[in-house]
């Protein structure tokens, strides 16, 4: 076990450049609600089931956004609130208990059940935390029942994962203050990426490492004052806050996208564990080199191209930083649904001077700006992509950035390729 610094290194001060200008907007948002996070979370935590308590709209959203017709029985479903539940003819809580009992009888493999709040359940003030407590009492120890809200009135797309992980934090076993220091990686990653990171940290000599969320709900990691954590994703504000309340300390770092981001992210942990510079270089240099070669392949296609980001997943700023610094793209506007200034401060410091950031959305005005700017590449959601293509703009679906392994050294080239592909396609087509 290597020695761990007792105090954390102060995060490097935001460089020389001034804080970027942020355009805050309010209006129609063309983004998903937090329920959509279930689409990857239900695959990540393999013994969990996500029961949305909502409307037919929620169920329709899930099948449309996930492209799911039942290919197998997915581990999510919707308890659809009906008129009689609203009219008071049926006590919504009794109905919910019935639905849960039927579900758990049918799916004995489920060990963790999330009751997921939606817009309608929030508006009618259906108390899902009480329901979760009640049902937990009934079904423990076989099934733990938790709740969180993925409603659109409270959450945007990836914030659903934040709410889900935040619901797990109080359930984590406590670690005492004399425990050996440990590192927790926080945020759902593709299994392949998670395994790469775990190998890298092992190679750096860190041997107490855990991940949140775990692949099985019975493997919840312990947390305590000697837990350091690294955020794998930029949208985990609430989860981080609750982990800090339990004594854990966040290691400030840029996010592990691209060579630079991944290096700095690994380095934040390496420094906390006082890994020597030389060891760090030995461990990371080969992968760094591979990643540089893999990304360089796309520099010719991407350098100098002007890119515009509509808000979607909060991954926009780290990705824009990667595209600007490692592929020489020009950032016209970088939209994000929400800007967490503290978690994003290392990223903001790396952005080129004078970049236009926007937070929130008024979609019609943003489309006006995009049309006026005529970017070479526009990153946007599925509702906008085809219409903008028709206008002659080249687009990249933002959702693919959430559903593809893009973090880490080995995926840096893949990430660049995602942006090069639409441009390459444009040049290939002669119809």
């Amino acid at each position, binding site marked *: 076990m290597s020695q761990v610094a007792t105090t954390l290194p102060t995060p490097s001060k935001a460089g020389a450049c001034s804080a970027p200008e942020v355009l805050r907007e309010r209006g129609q948002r063309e983004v998903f*609600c937090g329920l959509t996070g279930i689409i990857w979370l239900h695959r990540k935590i393999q013994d969990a089931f996500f029961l949305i308590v909502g409307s037919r709209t929620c169920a329709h959203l899930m099948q449309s956004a996930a492209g799911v017709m039942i290919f197998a029985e997915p581990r999510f479903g919707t308890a659809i609130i009906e008129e009689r539940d609203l009219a008071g003819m049926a006590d919504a809580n009794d109905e919910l208990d019935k639905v849960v009992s039927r579900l758990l009888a049918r799916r004995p493999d489920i060990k963790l059940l999330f009751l997921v709040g939606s817009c309608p359940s929030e508006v009618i003030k259906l108390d899902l935390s009480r329901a979760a407590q009640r049902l937990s009492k009934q079904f423990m120890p076989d099934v733990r029942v938790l709740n969180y809200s993925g409603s659109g009135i409270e959450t945007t797309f990836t914030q659903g994962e934040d709410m889900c992980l935040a619901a797990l934090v109080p359930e984590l076993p406590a670690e005492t203050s004399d425990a050996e220091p440990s590192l927790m990686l926080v945020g759902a990653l593709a299994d392949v990426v998670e395994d790469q990171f775990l190998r890298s940290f092992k190679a750096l000599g860190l041997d107490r490492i855990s991940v949140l969320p775990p692949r099985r709900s019975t493997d919840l990691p312990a947390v305590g004052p000697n837990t350091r954590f690294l955020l794998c994703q930029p949208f985990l504000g609430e989860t981080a806050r609750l982990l800090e309340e339990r004594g854990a300390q966040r290691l400030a770092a840029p996010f592990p996208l691209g060579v630079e981001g991944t290096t700095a992210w690994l380095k934040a942990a390496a420094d906390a564990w006082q890994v020597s510079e030389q060891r760090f270089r030995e461990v990371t240099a080969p992968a760094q080199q591979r990643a540089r070669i893999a990304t360089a392949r796309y520099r010719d296609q991407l350098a100098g191209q002007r890119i515009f980001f509509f808000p979607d997943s909060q991954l926009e700023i780290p990705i824009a930083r990667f595209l600007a610094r490692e592929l020489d793209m020009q950032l016209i506007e970088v939209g994000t649904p929400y800007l967490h200034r503290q978690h994003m401060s290392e990223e903001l410091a790396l952005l080129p001077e004078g970049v236009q950031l926007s937070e929130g959305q008024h979609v019609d005005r943003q489309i006006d700006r995009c049309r006026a700017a005529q970017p070479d590449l526009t990153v946007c959601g599925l509702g906008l992509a085809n219409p903008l293509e028709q206008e002659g703009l080249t687009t990249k679906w933002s959702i693919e950035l959430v559903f593809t392994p893009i973090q880490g050294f080995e995926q840096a080239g893949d990430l660049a390729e995602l942006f090069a592909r639409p441009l390459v396609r444009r040049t290939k087509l002669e119809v």
Partner: protein
Amino acid sequence: MQLTVWTYEGPPHVGAMRVATAMREVHYVLHAPQGDTYADLLFTMIERRDRRPPVTYTTFQARDLGSDTAELFKTAAAEAVERFQPQALMVGASCTAELIQDDPGGLAKALGLSLPVVPLELPSYSKKENWGAAETFYQMVRTLAGPNAPAPGVTRPERPADARPSCNLLGPTALGFRHRDDVLEVTKLLQSIGVEVQVVAPLNATPADLARLGDADFNVVLYPEIAQTAAGWLKRTFRQPHTTVVPIGIGATRDFLAEVAELAGVDPGPALAGAPSRLPWWSRSIDSTYLTGKRVFVFGDGCHVVAAARIAREELGFEVVGLGTYSREMAREVRTAAEGYGLEALITDDYLEVEEQIEALQPELVLGTQMERHIAKRLGVGCAVISAPVHVQDFPARYAPQMGWEGANVIFDTWVHPLMMGLEEHLLGMFREDFEFNDEAGGSHLGHGSKRSGPEAPVESREAAPGPETAIPQTSTAEAMASQTTTPETTTPVAPFWTAEAESELGKIPFFVRGKARRNTERFANQRSISAITVETLYDAKAHFGK
């Protein structure tokens, strides 16, 4: 509360969006929270529309509740009118906004806008998508055509002798199952008997077009799920009769033409002469003999299943063994049709019930929706899609109507395709131990080494996963999915024992009927209290059940 992972229909405001998106020069202001904008991608991705749906969402948040959601609505409506300059404005609420009771209709009225405003009240907790589309279309027609209605008691003037008979086509919407092509085909059909189409609505119609609906002599109801309410109102108000037959299939197209000819006072003879469709001859050609008596299960929306069942029995010589719909509004029509086949209709929107019935009936072909396609795939049965809900595959680049003469051609091809071609089926029966026919071998056209995944472990191919291929998360491997497929086993009291010989003989039966043979034999054995199944039992059961 109803537990579901999949629904045949979306909420009613999606039905309203299908009407708004189909039309031109209208705009729909929808009081809705963030996230409800997902519905846009149905149109831009599944249907590949190149324009955004003309919908503005108010996107209210938790912090707006109880304070200024009404103000938010008014701002959004005023901005939308100014930006998009529509001829008519539709206003309404999605499920969440319905609960906060802001009254979009009243709020829009208070804005004093100088254009027709159509308030839509679509109860989200009791109604569904098709009802929402029908109600929306009716409200649009009533608001826009209403001012031109004749005074009560005034009789409709006779059509001048020199004017050609005319009609409107009612019902096609955005995101409709082959609506785009059906409109073209039916227009051609009507032209062939000298009937002119004045307005098609809602697809590509403007509010001004809706205002002149009353000018035509009669209405053609293409999709009763969507057009029936509006057509009924037009009949009462403008004394416009309307058609009742949906022209899907040869027989129905003939009946439709007869009905239209009657309404228009023309002779359908010339249009029926000749060989307007290939289906009758294709079906009579000896290559189709193998289609005889194929057991089919039919499920989908009301008008498509009624038509499909008739085609199946009368035009392809199939046996209809099950018939059902998720369209509760069409339950009566579907029940009546089912009675004609000696069946009891399955009226449900629970796909698990549908799956259960398909498993029990063991059809050889399923005619259904995308959901039934998946069920059929899991059971190793052929399937053709005949109805919404739609999938990106239901918007082919080519011309592929369901209605009229060409529609019958398209239907022949798509339904027959999933069934094994005649000669090949015989060869499979004769040489079932051929190394390429055995269960482990994939298709020979795929080259050596390709493996078929047997019906016991269906693995969904990526190609078949519907919708925008966006959302298959990194962790979702086909393996993970297949491993958790829970196929509810039909429980038999005591499973009889299969002797090794019988098991091996069963293995010689082609995989796509093996499940049926196994179940039939076990049922046969159970009924006779036979505990060990031998080769004899297998063939006794075969003789007993026939085929």
